[in-house]
């Protein structure tokens, strides 16, 4: 078996046997290179109760290169682009092949709790996060409600 398929099967097995709190993921039916994942909004954050869907797309270079991860659910967050793309260092220039799918999903989950408004992908969200937290939370809550319907 090619190494990335073997590795993806191991990632999946580990995610099933030892699932981190608040995240889940699995390959799509026909294609092990494309996964669907869900991240539950962390407690004590405006994202609480949200069920946010993501797609994780691997290339044949995984795990030497990171997969492309996008929110499929609508998101309002300083580090998430309008198209769902995520601005997170470990998914770009600080990727390490020792990260697996569990590590990726839990890192994204922490990003929800701790946005980095200094490297914004959504400048509006970053500005509100810094200057008008109430309005920020209002918009995030709208995404949480939207996530129930999606």
């Amino acid at each position, binding site marked *: 078996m090619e*190494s*990335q398929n073997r590795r993806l099967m191991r990632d999946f097995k580990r995610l099933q046997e030892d699932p981190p709190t608040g995240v889940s993921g699995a390959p799509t039916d026909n294609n092990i290179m494309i996964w669907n994942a869900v991240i539950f909004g962390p407690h004590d954050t405006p994202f609480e109760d949200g069920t946010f869907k993501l797609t994780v797309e691997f290339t044949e*270079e995984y795990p030497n290169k990171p997969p492309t991860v996008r929110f499929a659910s609508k998101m309002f967050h300083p580090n998430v682009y309008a198209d769902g793309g995520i601005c997170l260092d470990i998914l*770009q220039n600080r990727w390490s092949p*020792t990260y*697996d799918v569990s590590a990726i999903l839990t890192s994204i989950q922490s990003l929800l709790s701790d946005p980095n408004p200094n490297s914004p992908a*959504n400048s*509006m969200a970053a500005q509100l996060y810094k200057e008008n937290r109430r*309005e920020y939370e209002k918009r995030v809550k709208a995404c949480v409600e939207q996530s129930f319907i999606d």
Partner: protein
Amino acid sequence: MADDNIEPDQASFDKGYSEDANQVNQDDLILQQSKNIEKEISDSIMLVGDKEDIMVLEQQYIGDEVYKGKVKDLARKYSNLRRTRPDGNCFFRSFGFALLESLYHLEFNSFRLIAEKSKDKLLELGFQKFTLEDFHDQFMEVVNLISKPETNEDTLVEVFNNKDYSDYVVVYLRLIASGQLQQDADFYQNFIEGNRTVFEFCRQEVEPMFKESDHIHIIALSTALDVGVRVRYMDRGDSTEAIAHDFPEDKPPQIHLLYRPGHYDILYPL
């Protein structure tokens, strides 16, 4: 007009939001561009090339007296050159290939023992067992090829041009270097620029693939595996010879590498 009914505050928020909707995902654009450059390189240069005569270097520097002089000097000490792909992994890949090749002549079993044990040290340092084992298994598979009688130079070139093996060897060597830096963090901290801890440096500059190597990577890897490396530096400097640096300093060289600004290849002594 509808706009008149919106409070000024709200209007500016809405405007900002719609601009965001059009905000281009810069990361994707940059990724696409670097992918195109990488493809150009990977289509034209093998991960590890065939052995070439050292004098091929001369043709590369026609009309350049400084470099020509240094090529002549190299040719007095080395017979051959083997190029590697300039993808940011060239040091680790060159090191890995030259190391395994050198094991034909040297004590294979003692190295295999060091390689086997290296995993335990990394686990002690807190590397994730699940992913570490994957890389270690693949690395050992390549190391063990050397002990098989049917393995020859062509086998090694083939394996090192198969990304499934070649990149896993690079990753594992990167992890070993990272482990060494972390284990002797107090010492290595002195050589790290900027306000970074050794751990951060490892996460940012050592473990990720395609990150270029510096002296500190070479010292860490050669120390961890107890393998001497001589690097010959070919640059615009005044000297008429390609100056040699040995890592670790007191260790006789087991492998020889050629450094030209930004890139490492493998050298074969006469």
